[in-house]
């Protein structure tokens, strides 16, 4: 994108002044190089979002923003129900509550290094990954509704994980206000055999080493010590979330005209928060969040079982579990007044700062852990929310590296087998059912996650705590 189209607020924040139907400005957080590399579609989509009814302050895009559908991926927008605000299925996306969970093993890298190949094979065997995979868990209709209402609490009651996990999950492990009856029979059928599966595409489980610490006090509070090993799991609400997104996108697109909402793009499908369909979507979407929380809780349990067999000393305490495709009701200070807003984060992570009442007590001084997935073979990051972040973009930060190249272009440039071999040379073991899948997820097809994180840090969205280097990657 051409920087001259923006008002430069700082070296890391760029504003589009309202024009046409825009009700508020659009603000993109990025350094100049990231901004120049962004697709013009991010500009178009962010300015379209800024035209939606009831939007508050601005439509934001994070440093990893790229072309999504309707909303940009890496988009954040908040709406006020009392001022005609809307809720949008496209503003949450198909993979509802896709997110990252990070577990602390307490093991040193050299301990893991000796058994790395065994660990990679055991994790690949224990974690169903890829297209067509099913879990060992099949839910009947009653269990399905209990899961959709209970989230990680339901999983814990079924014997997956530990009670201490719950405090380290957003919403304490259970999204309130879920309405399983707003989730269609088709969505539930799609999920019946998919609990405890990783999925495909950019979803993964990685064993990582803490290789650099930037904020020793926060790292200590988070339990991140240089040379120690953690496990990060990236996945979402599986087929259930995809089906909810599909159906409500269609229903909202059809209903928008009924509510007098003119859509610049069908993909911006939305409905007033206080409408019947808006409320039904929120109930279904929250059930989707619970599905994702339960799924990551189960995958965390499988991971603990594998480590328990290979490394009896390992503890695998949960550092945190974040979601990055959600719409949540939150209170924020807007021009000195406390307002209740529906904050959409699509490909953006909540990043509450120190002292926030929603954080567990032992993390309150440091701020919320913000888990940023990189690409295979590069690095991942742990950041912490800042107080400035709440004023900058409703307490939000980036969620990953963001693609810089299409899947098609990636497969033309790289062969999966070669990537697996090259990474093994560098000490990173990849296990995947599909070489083509590996090629599509080639590290070179992503932006430099370090640059994205640096921009988020400099923009005050979140602050750097630790950098993680992959040792093992199970790829869906």
């Amino acid at each position: 994108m051409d920087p001259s189209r923006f008002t430069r607020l700082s070296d890391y924040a760029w504003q589009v002044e309202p024009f046409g139907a825009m009700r508020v400005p659009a603000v993109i957080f990025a350094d100049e190089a990231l901004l120049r590399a962004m697709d013009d579609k991010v500009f178009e989509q962010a300015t379209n979002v800024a035209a939606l009814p009831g939007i508050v302050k601005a439509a934001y895009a994070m440093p990893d923003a790229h072309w999504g559908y309707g909303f940009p991926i890496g988009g954040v927008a908040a709406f006020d129900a009392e001022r005609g605000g809307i809720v949008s299925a496209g503003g949450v996306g198909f993979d509802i509550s896709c997110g990252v969970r990070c577990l602390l093993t307490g093991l040193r890298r050299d301990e893991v290094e000796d058994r790395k190949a065994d660990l990679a094979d055991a994790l690949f065997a224990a974690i169903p990954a890829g297209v067509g995979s099913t879990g060992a868990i099949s839910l009947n209709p009653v269990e399905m509704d209990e899961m959709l209402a209970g989230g990680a609490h339901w999983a814990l009651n079924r014997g997956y994980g530990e009670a201490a996990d719950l405090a380290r999950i957003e919403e304490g492990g259970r999204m309130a206000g879920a309405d399983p009856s707003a989730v269609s029979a088709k969505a539930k059928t799609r999920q019946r055999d998919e609990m405890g599966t990783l999925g495909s595409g950019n979803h993964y489980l990685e064993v990582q080493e803490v290789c650099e610490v930037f904020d020793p006090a926060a790292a200590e509070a988070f339990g991140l010590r240089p040379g120690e090993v953690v496990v990060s799991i990236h996945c979402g609400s599986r087929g259930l979330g995809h089906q909810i997104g599909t159906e409500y996108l269609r229903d909202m697109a059809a209903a928008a005209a009924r509510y007098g909402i003119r859509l610049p793009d069908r993909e911006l499908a939305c409905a007033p928060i206080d409408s019947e369909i808006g409320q039904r979507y929120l109930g279904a979407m929250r059930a989707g969040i619970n599905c994702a929380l339960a799924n990551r809780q189960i995958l965390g349990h499988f991971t603990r079982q594998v480590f328990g067999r290979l490394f009896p000393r390992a503890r695998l305490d949960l550092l945190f579990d974040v979601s990055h495709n959600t719409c949540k009701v939150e209170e924020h200070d807007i021009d000195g007044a406390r307002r209740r807003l529906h904050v959409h984060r699509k490909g953006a992570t909540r990043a509450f700062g120190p002292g926030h009442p929603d954080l567990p007590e032992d993390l309150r001084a440091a701020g919320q852990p913000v888990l940023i997935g990189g690409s295979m073979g590069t690095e991942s990051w742990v950041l912490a929310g800042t107080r400035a972040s709440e004023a900058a973009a409703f307490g939000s930060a980036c969620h990953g590296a963001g693609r810089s190249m299409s899947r098609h272009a990636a497969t033309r440039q790289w062969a999966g087998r070669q990537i697996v071999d090259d990474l093994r040379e560098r000490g990173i073991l990849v296990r995947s059912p599909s070489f083509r899948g590996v090629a599509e997820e080639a590290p070179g097809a992503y932006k430099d996650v370090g640059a994205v994180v640096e921009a988020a840090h400099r923009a005050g969205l979140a602050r750097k705590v630790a950098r993680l280097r992959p040792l093992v990657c199970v790829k869906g």
Partner: protein
Amino acid sequence: MTGATWEHFPHEADVGLRGRGPTLAAAFEQVAVAMTAVVTDPAGVRTASAVALECEAEDPELLLIEWLNALVYEMATRRMLFGRYVVSIDAGRLNATAWGEPVDVARHQPAAEVKGATYTALRVVQDTGGWWTAECVVDV
């Protein structure tokens, strides 16, 4: 159908599907082959069993979304891949048969599952020569 073709067009994070054919139905058959190609090489899918589908919508663009999402649902719940499609469309109503087989991970090497069809770059048009193009981006 003679000359009917499919291709992918680039999208940063996801995949664009395009089908072309002498009739709307032929273009819809091709766009479905393009969706299979997101997951695996369509030529490597055995057309062993048939699944019947139907859907409807008020205009051809919405019908394309319904058609692709019906296939996404069948692929996901049956854990199948489809290699051949026969479509008929009459007054906004689509009837189809999809031939395929269960996913065989070793043989198909499935790259990524399709989460759903989006309204992004959604276009169904007939050119002056009478040929149809049907296209949209699917989320993977």
